[in-house]
């Protein structure tokens, strides 16, 4: 048994840790308003912001709990990506361009914490788009699924008197019929003759034909390229291009060339996508579930606490204190990591409470046995913890194995990657680790300090 000094050091560390967790979990502001006779209290407490400076670096952490689609409501869209027309060596580049493009479109919503993800399942590529808090799902589908907003328009010769008042759209009013779906990709390349950067365009067969017609018609004139009717460039056609490969050269530096190329790629979806799954969850449904779930959790927790006290008396009370610390630490971790809470996640949290209690029950039962054998309280406590540890370790290791298979951290394609199952697994796993810490380490030290004195009397 460690000496008394050490025990108290550990004890105060636990208290400090708990206190820190309480602060982190504190609501950002608590208005307090009440009257006692003539005495009026009207004050709002603010939680200190977690931003501080070390030297030049500034640390800032948003500690709000994050809720998933099921709790906050929103939309989840899964698109099938057609990769059959893309060469293998170009696939990664095309997928990245697709992702960047969709992200650009999603950001138009101004939705926070959107999640755009390319998923490879047995060679089938999927695009997962998650939009928490979006209620108008059909416009979201339209915006994301629209294949092309890129258009090519030819310059027409206006009468000299109209030129002065002509707008851009008046000048470039002849549609060439080419749009983003015809553009395979755009890259930046260096002209070997003058080492200047230029932007190349590559069209698909249909686009090549249209482009050949257009370059023939507008030779020595300009063709404007527009995204969402906003012009991004209007190069002059120098010659008829029939092979579908065009180069825009000019006096731009490499940064401007990259930007233009990215804009062109963003306007065109490099791969065609098809909506295969859509889920809409209105916030009301989520709200109902979260409220009921929290209520059920609290009732269950109180029952467990009462059961522990009823069964193990003072020991049970200390285990309950350990449980409260457990709850605080887990919540703190949710905020710090941060973990997006989904309903299955909350269920996983509740379940892990059960497993945390199990460690204590194992220990207390062992202590009872040792006491029955006639050992004194102190040594039966230490023996109880020591003997139970073996079982706790093995039993929890089994849960961790299954938890890891559910979490699938290496993204193995043959295992589940659904957010729901993962949300459950991550809270279950975290709960097990924290549960071992509080159930064994914290409870043991609390017992050493709090229960020892009383019993020895």
């Amino acid at each position, binding site marked *: 048994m460690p000496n008394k000094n050490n025990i108290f050091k550990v004890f105060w560390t636990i208290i400090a840790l708990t206190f820190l967790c309480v602060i982190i979990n504190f609501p950002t502001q608590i208005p307090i308003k009440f009257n006692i006779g003539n005495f009026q209290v009207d004050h709002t407490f603010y939680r200190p912001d977690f931003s501080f400076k070390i030297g030049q670096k500034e640390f800032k952490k948003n500690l709000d709990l994050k809720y998933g689609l099921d709790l906050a409501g929103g939309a989840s869209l899964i698109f099938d990506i057609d990769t059959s027309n893309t060469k293998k060596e170009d696939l990664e580049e095309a997928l990245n361009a697709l992702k960047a493009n969709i992200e650009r479109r999603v950001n138009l919503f101004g939705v926070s914490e959107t999640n755009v993800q390319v998923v490879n399942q047995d060679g089938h590529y999927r695009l997962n788009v998650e939009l928490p808090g979006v209620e108008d799902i059909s416009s979201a*589908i339209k915006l994301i699924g629209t294949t092309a907003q890129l258009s090519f328009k030819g310059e027409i010769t206006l009468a000299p008197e109209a030129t002065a008042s002509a707008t851009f759209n008046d000048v470039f009013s002849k549609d060439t019929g080419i749009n983003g779906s015809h553009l395979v990709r755009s890259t930046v390349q260096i002209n070997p003759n003058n080492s200047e950067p230029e932007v190349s365009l590559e069209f698909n067969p249909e686009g090549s034909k249209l482009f050949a017609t257009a370059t023939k018609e507008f030779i020595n004139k300009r063709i404007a390229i527009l995204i969402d009717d906003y012009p991004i460039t209007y190069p002059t056609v120098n010659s008829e291009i029939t092979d579908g490969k065009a180069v825009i050269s000019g006096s731009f530096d490499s940064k401007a060339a990259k930007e233009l190329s990215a804009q062109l790629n963003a306007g065109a979806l490099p791969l065609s996508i098809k909506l295969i799954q859509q889920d809409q969850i209105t916030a009301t449904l989520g709200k109902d579930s979260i409220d009921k779930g929290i209520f059920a959790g609290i009732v269950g927790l109180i029952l467990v606490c009462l059961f522990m006290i009823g069964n193990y008396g003072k020991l049970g009370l200390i285990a309950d204190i350990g449980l409260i610390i457990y709850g605080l630490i887990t919540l703190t971790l949710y905020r710090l990591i941060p973990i997006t809470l989904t309903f299955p996640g909350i269920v996983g949290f509740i379940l892990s409470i059960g497993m945390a209690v199990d460690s204590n029950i194992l220990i207390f039962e062992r202590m009872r046995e040792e006491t029955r054998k006639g050992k004194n309280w102190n040594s039966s406590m230490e023996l109880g913890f020591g003997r139970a540890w073996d079982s706790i370790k093995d039993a929890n290791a089994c849960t961790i*194995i299954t938890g890891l298979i559910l979490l699938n951290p290496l993204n193995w394609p043959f295992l589940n990657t659904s957010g729901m*199952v993962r949300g459950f697994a991550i809270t279950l796993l975290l709960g097990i680790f924290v549960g071992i810490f509080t159930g064994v380490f914290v409870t043991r030290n609390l017992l050493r300090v709090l229960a020892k004195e009383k019993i020895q009397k």
Partner: protein
Amino acid sequence: MNIMKFRPLFYIFSLCLILISIFSIVFWGFKSSIDFSGGSNWVMNLPSLPNQDSVNSIFQENNLDLPQIITNNQTYSFRFKNIDSDQKDKLVVSILKLDPDYKELKFESLGPVLGKELLKKTIYAVVLSAFALLIFIGSRFKDISFGSAAVLAMIHDTIILIGSFSLFGHFFGAELDSLFVTALLTTLSSSVHDTVVTFNRIKELRRQNYKFNWVDLANEAVTETLSRSLNNSMTIIFMLLSLVVLGGSTTKWFATALLVGVICGTYSSIGVAIPLVLFFKRDKKKK
């Protein structure tokens, strides 16, 4: 306490449960949710409480198959084959005629490809878990009969859990969804959790009294761990019962599945895993 003398009783009981489960799975099958079979689930709020015939006629008007309708007060759920957004827009127009206060709560559609994938991945996860646990427990106890007994008990729990869901589906309309898959995988580990604790005690007792025969060791270990097993199961049952009774409708069957899994897991560590270890050990002696 000589619990192990009831071994034949345990065998018969478990065999009955497994046979009932398999019977139900084979003959009644499952009410699989769209997670598995693919399709659309459309949940809406209709305050005017239209009857089923008028709702069916809307689907007939739009040349769609009749949906399966589940009503709960003002909440209507429709399940039907996949529709595209144009067809859905048309349906909304018709429904608005029926009830101007219509409000959509949820629209889920799952392509059948995804359903098949989920099923496949679940089977992989079960198999992978079984192998991982077999290896882990086998190596922890340096004895493969412990590992196989624990995994067989786990499979016993899994079959009963799946079977009970087939029964729930047949009699109460419970659906197999991806949350159920989560419950199933949790049961895999919690069943083993309980078994490992009892096995650990056998290992410890054997170290102390090597001369004991396996049946006596098993009896002693079960007696010593029984109150722990029951107390522990009680706390988990409290948590889950409160979720079943008080939780939202979306998680009700999920919690029920976990409840069945926990009760079954507690029983199987005493009634299945340990008798199986004794069975394996007896075989070895005869050789």
